[in-house]
């Protein structure tokens, strides 16, 4: 079935919502009274807006009753992260990680990557998480990326291109062979293509962009980066056609986007206009 961008975006929003609006915990699994009480308070906090006084009070009470209840530490931290208070976020989140490295080390690593672009710190967390997960680190909190792809992007931004390609291979090729095309992330081929472009492997980058088109072809970033690569290969006429297509797609709302942060390799209309102007001057 060919998915439209709108359907994909709705699916992503749904997945994001599912991840951020955490699910309720089955409190019957606990046998001691403090865990049961904390669990019930944690579930009840979900009745209030995230970050509201009531929600935070419920979570605070859950922690006071049962300081071992990692989920409450994690949940109380989230509004601080989303609202730029990274000190308080870390204070709470670190307690969750200390109590339950699996899965919260992976969550912290991903948050450091996404919200702070702390590539070095994120990579340390994710590499440890990779080990404790038995080398099956699963997906990011928003469901957009396999964590190997996040690790690849961290390595890329730190300038370690061969290591980035190693993680891309684990996050794309291994997933493709073991689980099939539908498990490869929405924009993973694009990110690997941008990495190869930076490595001046233009043919390799175009090959990955071709894979991206086969996977899903209707967003501006694909044509923006094809345009840049054609420009670098001195195929200016093709580059301008690609960039104009990217411009049309951005103007019609078909581009990478996230409600919290700028996404990796996301392009803005000004990026496209600058590229067009630069190539026209050649």
């Amino acid at each position: 079935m060919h998915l439209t961008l709108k359907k994909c975006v709705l699916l992503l929003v749904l997945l994001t919502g599912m991840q951020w609006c955490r699910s309720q915990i089955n409190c019957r699994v606990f046998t001691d009274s403090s865990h049961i009480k904390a669990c019930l308070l944690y579930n009840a906090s979900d009745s209030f807006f995230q970050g509201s006084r009531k929600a935070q009070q419920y979570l605070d009470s859950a922690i006071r009753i049962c300081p071992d209840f990692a989920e409450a530490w994690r949940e109380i931290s989230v509004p601080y992260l989303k609202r730029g208070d990274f000190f308080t976020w870390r204070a709470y989140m670190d307690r969750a990680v200390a109590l339950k490295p699996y899965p919260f080390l992976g969550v912290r690593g991903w948050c450091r990557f996404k919200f702070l672009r702390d590539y070095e710190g994120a990579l340390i967390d994710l590499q440890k998480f990779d080990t404790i997960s038995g080398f099956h680190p699963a997906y990011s909190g928003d469901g957009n990326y396999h964590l190997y792809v996040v690790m690849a992007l961290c390595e890329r931004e730190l300038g370690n291109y061969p290591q980035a390609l190693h993680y891309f291979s684990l996050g794309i090729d291994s997933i493709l062979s073991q689980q099939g095309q539908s498990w490869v992330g929405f924009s993973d081929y694009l990110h690997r293509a941008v990495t190869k472009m930076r490595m001046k492997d233009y043919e390799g980058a175009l090959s990955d962009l071709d894979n991206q088109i086969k996977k899903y072809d209707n967003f501006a970033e694909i044509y923006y980066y094809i345009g840049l690569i054609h420009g670098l290969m001195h195929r200016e006429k093709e580059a301008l056609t690609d960039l104009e297509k990217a411009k049309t797609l951005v103007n019609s709302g078909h581009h990478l986007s996230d409600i919290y942060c700028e996404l990796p390799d996301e392009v803005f209309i000004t990026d496209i206009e600058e590229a067009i102007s630069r190539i026209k001057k050649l």
Partner: protein
Amino acid sequence: MALCRTPLKQTPITAWLLVLIVICNNISAQTKAERYKGVDSFPSNTGDIAFNTALDDPSFTVCNPQIVLQYYNTTSYYKQHKREIEHYFKSHYQPGTETADQSGYVTIRFIINCSGQTGRFRMYELDTGYKPFTFHSAISDQLMKLAKNLQGWQPAVYKGKTYDSYQYITFTLKKGLIECISP
């Protein structure tokens, strides 16, 4: 008659016992210090910035203090104009000298009111390990001044109505240079 207390005979065993007791007391004290005491009062919403006469311009008003959205609740001006905002800061910011140890995160959080005016600016400074840090004032004051002078903000809009909203900008600094701007 003066009472003389017989001094405790210092044998190797008593000495070790004393050391053990001191260590145990220290561990116990540390555990107590780390024990979660809870928060006495949370703000109405996490991250709320109350008016402070010492810090804030009294002419800046919030249209509806009961409903101040977060930037991610609607399509925000910041997200749509990030490149222009990045360009503004990077082109105006001038790193000073002696910046070798000036690395970490500077976050400026503020309100955009329903008319697109900005106010109630607050700054949070952290080192690369997310610990509180004080950057040279040449860096922090400059970033704050640039943030306050940035014009052109537009209010958050939801279902055709304008709202006040919170926005934050984080500068990742490496040796005094702006490495990136987020979110």
